[in-house]
């Protein structure tokens, strides 16, 4: 095995297989947004602090600005685009809308992925568990209360 500066990777994103050649230095978030044109996942801070770039990697919640695309070779990725089906919001997305859990919406894709990860593991989280689950996601608009309410509602 030798180290390479460019590599062909295969990833499944929201159920679709993609094969692309990428630079080793390319961050996963840029691969998702610019190479695959899935611009739902956002870049907020680019330092691992805000969570706007959160995606699920083989079912595990990660910040995609803190990884290289080549590290995701062979993985299954889920992004916010995979939540709705046939134009219909899923229950969690509908709950965000119903509870005014977004204002500018910048944090929302990451919030939804963090909430998705939580609800898969814990179908009836307490308020404290919800707050702990979204600790890595910063929202500068809502004050979090409505986000917590929406996740609570979606859990029911």
């Amino acid at each position, binding site marked *: 095995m030798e*180290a*390479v500066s460019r590599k062909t990777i295969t990833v499944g994103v929201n159920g679709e297989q993609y094969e692309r050649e990428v630079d*080793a*230095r390319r961050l996963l978030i840029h691969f998702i947004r610019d190479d695959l044109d899935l611009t739902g996942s956002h870049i907020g801070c*680019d330092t*691992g602090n805000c969570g706007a770039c959160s995606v699920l990697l083989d079912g595990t919640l990660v910040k995609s600005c803190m990884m290289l695309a*080549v590290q995701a070779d062979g993985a299954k990725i889920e992004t916010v685009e995979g939540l709705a089906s046939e134009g219909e919001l899923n229950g969690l997305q509908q709950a965000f809308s119903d509870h005014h859990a977004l204002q500018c919406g910048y944090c929302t894709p990451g919030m939804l992925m963090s909430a998705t990860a939580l609800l898969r593991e814990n179908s009836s989280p307490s308020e404290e568990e919800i707050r702990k689950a979204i600790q890595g996601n910063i929202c500068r608009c809502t004050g979090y209360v409505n986000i917590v309410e929406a996740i609570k509602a979606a859990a029911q």
Partner: protein
Amino acid sequence: MLLREVEYARPASVQEALRLLGANDGARALAGGQTLINVMKARAASPDVLVDLADIGELRGIELGSDGTLEIGAMTTYSDIIGSAEARARPILGEVCNQIADVQVRNRGTMGGNVCSNDPTNHLPPLLVAIGATMTIVGQNGERSVPAEEFFLGVYMTAVGPGELLTKIFVPPGKGDGFASVPIGKDGTCIVNVAASLDGGAPRLAIGCVDAVPVLLRPDSAEDDAVRAAVRSANLDPPWDVHASADYRRHLAEVLALRAVAQAAGRT
């Protein structure tokens, strides 16, 4: 952020990783990337080659030996520790891992990366010093064991030399531990943190965030007066920054030492 050009390899064995690290002076191990990717973005370091340890099975996992010693692979994530039944043999490990950053960072960040980066504000350096962990380091010339209290050498510097890897962390059995901190948010980066262990007979205290490496103290007893005296006689000279003055950090060191010891005493 566009990183500087870098080469990447994901070897499947420690031997192969050592060969790749040895082949280029600019090669660096990549663990969870939760420090290194940021360091590369900031150009604080720009490795030429990244040797990703993710596929090396022997670096993962948590085993509980018959004598109660935990053997933890360097690539074990904080989330692995939190979810592990074996790791509950030393409950403080999961409790402290659950205070690091947030879910996303805990899912990627590793035990090995946390200690090898030796950021003075990290949670695990003082904890592993207080509970008397031992690190296994492997290089071209074989393997050696280093006690945690000799592992941390300076800010971002450890006993792991160029071309070497930390492979395992051994944690002896025990329950009488405590950890107290004042973090910047509810969890996450600490202003000061203190780990205490009362298991090995004499109390062991390790204070983080006040020096380049955890400050190990051995008070005469677990009594408040003895703990206070030990912290005062250490003549701490902590850094100051936007979060706290040096005086405030000194004050916190004493208060948190008492809290960590009280927690540990409640569990022995």
